[in-house]
């Protein structure tokens, strides 16, 4: 399964990224399985080909926090299940690194689990995307750059979870425009859930890729928006909060 497979921009997309030509991203790997770290390292770490430089590795929460603080990477590939509190704990303790204006550290969750609890948990913790471990190397590289550029990586499954979360509520409460997804965002998510790439979503809805991305970012923001209305209820029902 490679949930992000179709959400990526084609690698040949020249408009992407400020540093056109040689794109670079410094990455920290956080996973408690050394074999897996080695595998990812081998897959994406060939800096000349992929433009990705692995600048640090960590196997548990404490290690991860200190390595991330020391290395200040562009993107952290974060396992959801970690000894010492899990990926959510790493996110919580690295919160100030995410919010700095100067070169913020971005997190891309990478997990074998695609259970709603895990996905929504790390997204609400501040991760910019979520991919499962069966993702192919090229897709992972694309996802890393997308996250490094500040965009969200929305897999079809994640889009499905979000739609489910927001759709399950019946009567809209007050100030619904604050928290609920707009009709447009819903349409975008629905197409992503159907496996459309951002580019295809744009074509389908007659909007630009940039607009699609801003809709997706808005959804991500609303997801992180804490404890309001239906998301709260949904999360509580599934023991997420």
């Amino acid at each position, binding site marked *: *399964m*490679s*949930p992000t*497979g*179709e959400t990526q921009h084609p690698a040949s997309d020249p408009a992407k990224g400020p540093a056109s030509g040689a794109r670079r991203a410094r990455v920290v790997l956080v996973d408690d399985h050394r074999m897996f770290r080695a595998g990812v390292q081998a897959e994406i770490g060939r800096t000349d080909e992929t433009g990705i430089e692995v600048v640090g590795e960590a196997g548990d929460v404490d290690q991860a926090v200190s390595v991330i603080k020391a290395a200040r990477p562009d993107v952290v590939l974060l396992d959801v*299940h970690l000894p010492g*509190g*899990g990926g*959510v*704990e790493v996110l*919580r303790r690295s919160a100030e690194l995410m919010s700095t204006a100067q070169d913020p550290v971005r997190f891309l969750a990478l997990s074998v*689990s*695609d*259970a709603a609890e895990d996905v929504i948990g790390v997204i609400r913790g501040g991760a910019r995307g979520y991919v499962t471990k069966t993702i192919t190397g090229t897709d992972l590289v694309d996802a890393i750059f997308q996250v490094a550029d500040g965009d969200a990586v929305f897999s*079809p*499954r994640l*889009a*499905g979870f979000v*739609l*489910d979360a927001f*759709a*399950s509520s019946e009567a809209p409460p007050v100030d619904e425009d604050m928290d609920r997804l707009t009709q447009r965002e819903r349409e975008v998510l*629905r197409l992503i*859930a*159907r*496996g459309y790439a951002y580019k295809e979503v744009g074509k389908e809805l007659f909007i630009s890729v940039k607009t699609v991305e801003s809709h997706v970012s808005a959804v991500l923001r609303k997801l992180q928006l804490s404890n309001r209305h239906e998301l709260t209820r949904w999360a509580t029902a599934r023991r997420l909060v």
Partner: protein
Amino acid sequence: MTMATPYGSAVDEPPVRKLYRSADGRWLGGVAQGLAGHLGVPVSWVRVILLVLFSSNGLGVLLYGIFWFVVPLGAPQTTPVAPARREFRLRRPDKQSLIAVLVVAVAMFALVTSVQYPISGTYLWPMMIIGVGAAVVWRQVDNSRRAAWAAATRGSRWLPLLRAAAGAVLVGMGIATFVLGQNAAATESLGVALQSAVAVLVGIALLAGPYLVRIVQDLSEERTMRIRAQERAEVAAHVHDSVLHTLTLIQRNAENGREVARLARAQERELRAWLYKSAESERGATVEEDEQPKTFAEAVRATAAEVEDHHGVQIEVVCVGDCPLDEPLGAALQAAREAMVNAAKYGGEGGPIRVFGEVEGRTVFVSVRDRGPGFDPDTVPADRMGVRESIVGRMRRNGGSARVRSTPGEGTEVELTMERSE
């Protein structure tokens, strides 16, 4: 993940503070020691306060007795004073106990002689004796429990029995006194019989109560342990039955990439369902057992899994919303299945097939999308019935609609829409 330590909490503070009596450095029942540990104050304070309470209408005795009775003997709460006191106790444990007993006895004596009780002596003394008897029995239970932990390190086997017997005798004596003392005053035999019956019942309760309480406590503890062990065994069994077998099969079929992928996928799906769905479906576990899916989302997933296994392709399913399955929806599922099979056959190497099912309000929508070569729907010859009959025709007959969108080079998508009948 849930073990996250909250910000700013004291470093060495235990998360749950539970009151236990302390077996370490105790004088009598360990109540003062336990309380001191729990409240985080020196033991001597608690002892002094209890002593003061002794002299004020015997409240201290009552309090101490209640704590002794109710609070289980447990993990020693180490207080700042405990270590120093411990050595002291080890050298002369009996002297301290003796002091404590003496203090209590003196306090009781003072109490009995100085305080005017609203009940007469004929009631008071038997009750006192019963109380002391029950205390001895209680203490005995306490000790036997501790002895179980220490695994019979000490030799004397008669002492506990002796104590139990003494307690029983005391309680019996108390009851007898109670009944006999009443007998003199009572004139009606019915009243006497009733009273003695009640007294015997109370006596039995006093004797058996401690044991019962302890047994219940031990039982609940044991039950938790057993449940944990069962869970572990279940996980082990499941991993053994499914995962290990699949890995063996994969080793044997290492050259056959397609078969390996199929096995791994099927196993992944099963294990995932078992791991992540078990919490949700705990209540409906029996429903899960019989193969037929009951709801739309379940059915979509099951259908996709079937096609995935049968045709050896990867199908990713995303479901939003859910509703019970009915006949038109069954037809929609059949159509979706046909679309999946088509995608599996002709979709080729363009990556996984994506199936999206959504129930929103009254509308049920299924999309099946592949990234294969695609085709031009207009050029399909009229005698090819697959799409036309199995998908479009079937949907129309059941009150829904189907749309096939395909662009050469960009894959094919089949959209099925159906209104719920109910």
